[in-house]
């Protein structure tokens, strides 16, 4: 039957395009109301979506649950912050520094973390995340626990692309699309297939002659780089860096985001970031005790919606399709 194929075509091509189109059109809708606030909000969504993409690569495609992913965001952000504190605001310096720092941290910690499996892997990534957090808290000249205000956003050869909110928004959107395309290409490439194969059956991949460890380490470093990139954008978007960007609660939130949307689908990570942040924003406006609603909601989603929101939609769509097939007449 062609039905399942249509689903995946919908999933893989139409849905992401629809999402990006939505983001692109948002400023038009926002211009009629609280423009700066909405742009700021959705920009944050897109930035976290970039980080979530990196995490989905690891968790969804590699079954490597990293509980310290927020550290990469923090490292990228602090690269910008620390350089700004020394009056270095040029993006062609800060961006490479952020990326290199994040990738290096990923590479170094990855060599240690990837010696473990399962829940031990989760815990050791958490450990490194915590170490990054405490290190940042101890940096008294850079604000320590209070954080550091960034007075001017990064500039590029004299231009200030981040100063105008709408332009910044579209730049972030372009970055998101770029990262998505990169991850998509990675996943279907030979590298991606080896990596995914390692998740399915590591022994088999090893007997086929692949050094899984190298592939996993590379994926871990790439995922870290994406997180660092998100951090670079976040620092510029909020004009502020603080150790709170790296807390274990933040790492937990990233995991929730990719689970929300649907693991291992890439656009699920974007949807998850969107859903999680918007839901939190909306609920916190409703009531002070919004976590009392949000908590059980999470539980329900886990219990009922396997595969996150995308899975839920898929289930509903399948059920609807089955119904329409089962009723040939009328």
């Amino acid at each position, binding site marked *: 039957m062609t039905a399942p194929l249509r689903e995946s075509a919908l999933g893989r091509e139409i849905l992401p395009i629809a999402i990006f189109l939505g983001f692109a059109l948002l400023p038009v809708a926002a211009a009629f109301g609280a423009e700066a606030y909405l742009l700021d909000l959705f920009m944050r969504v897109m930035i976290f979506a970039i980080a979530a993409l990196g995490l989905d690569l690891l*968790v969804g495609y590699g079954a490597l*649950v990293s509980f310290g992913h927020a550290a990469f965001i923090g490292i990228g952000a602090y690269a910008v912050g620390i350089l700004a504190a020394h009056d270095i605001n040029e993006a062609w310096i800060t961006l490479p520094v952020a990326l290199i720092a994040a990738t290096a941290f990923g590479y170094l910690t990855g060599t*240690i973390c990837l*010696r*473990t*499996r*399962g*829940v*031990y892997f*989760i*815990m*050791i990534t*958490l*450990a*490194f995340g*915590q*170490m990054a957090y*405490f*290190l940042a*808290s*101890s940096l*008294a000249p850079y604000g*320590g626990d209070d954080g550091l205000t960034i007075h001017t956003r990064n500039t590029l050869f004299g231009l200030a692309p981040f100063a105008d909110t709408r332009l910044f928004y579209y730049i972030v959107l372009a970055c998101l699309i770029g990262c998505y395309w990169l991850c998509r290409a990675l996943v279907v490439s030979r590298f991606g297939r080896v990596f995914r194969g390692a998740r399915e059956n590591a022994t088999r991949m090893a007997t086929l002659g692949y050094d899984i460890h190298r592939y996993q380490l590379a994926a871990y470093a790439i995922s870290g780089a994406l997180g660092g990139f998100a951090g670079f954008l976040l620092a510029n978007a909020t004009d502020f860096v603080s150790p709170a960007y790296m807390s*274990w609660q933040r790492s*937990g939130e990233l*995991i*929730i985001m990719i*689970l929300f949307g649907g*693991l291992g689908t890439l656009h699920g990570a974007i949807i998850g970031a969107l859903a999680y942040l918007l839901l939190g924003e909306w609920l916190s406006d409703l009531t002070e*005790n919004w*976590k*009392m609603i*949000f*908590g*059980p*909601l*999470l*539980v329900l*989603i*886990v*219990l009922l919606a396997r595969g996150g929101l995308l899975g839920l939609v898929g289930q509903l769509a399948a059920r609807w399709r089955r119904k329409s097939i089962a009723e040939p007449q009328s």
Partner: protein
Amino acid sequence: MSMSLLVVQILNGLQLGVLLFLIAAGLTLVFGVMNFINLAHGVQYMLGAYLAVMFYTITGSSLLALVLALFSALAFGLFLEFVVFRHLYERDHLDQVIATFGIILFLNQAVKYVWGAAPLSLPVPELFSGSVVLMPGLLYPVWRLVVISAGLIVALMLYALVNLTRLGMLVRAGANNAPMVSALGVDIRRLFMIVFGFGTMLAGFAGIMIAPILSVEPGMGDTILILAFVVIVIGGIGSIRGAFIAALLIGLADTLGRSFSVDVLRLVMAPSPARTVGPAIASMLIYLMMALVLYFRPTGLFPPKGRVR
């Protein structure tokens, strides 16, 4: 760095270790036997403390408050198990993490809603409210010694239970290979429930014991939860002996680290930066320890032998 200060800090470290053990024991049992990551274990601890305060306010008796709080904590834990957790045993760890995280959010907020946001206080039971002179000028509260003793007694009881009783045998077998135990005709559901109930009671007990010393406030379970996870990972998941040793190790390392990090650092750097870097290093210490242990022993120090998972 005087000898008596060292002795006191060691006692303090033991007290923290014992507290961590009470919480980690339940966590490692549940994880080991049921393969269930329960992040909500921390709020179980918090709930124990809150229930103790509530029952003390109602009855005015410390003993009654302890007993009532213990049983109501158990009841609540079993209720959670019935409503939420038992649907998660078959799911993978990630789902369990998220769902129990949701429970944490809910309970932290609910506790604030019911009892208010301000920290609450529980007085030390009359009988143990004195102090002993440990060093000239420092009185060491008797209650802290009570906590240490209680923890050690519970540790002994658990050891006896797990190693010398039939139930303990089933638990050890379950930690090794739960499906096989079920296939051998044991009611695995009941075993799970008993294990979970025990774990929950231990956490609640820890909360009740610590309430007279620490302030009772929303979110008090979160930091200790992370520490407890570090403990069970270092100790080896499913191993009570591992949890005990790791808990004492961490309790001592954390306490001694906090006390002496600045002094140690002052040997190599100026006092002012030492004062801010010291506490940071002290906080990182246990994570460094965990990373080191996992590097050399990727499954912890004392993983249950022949674990099929």
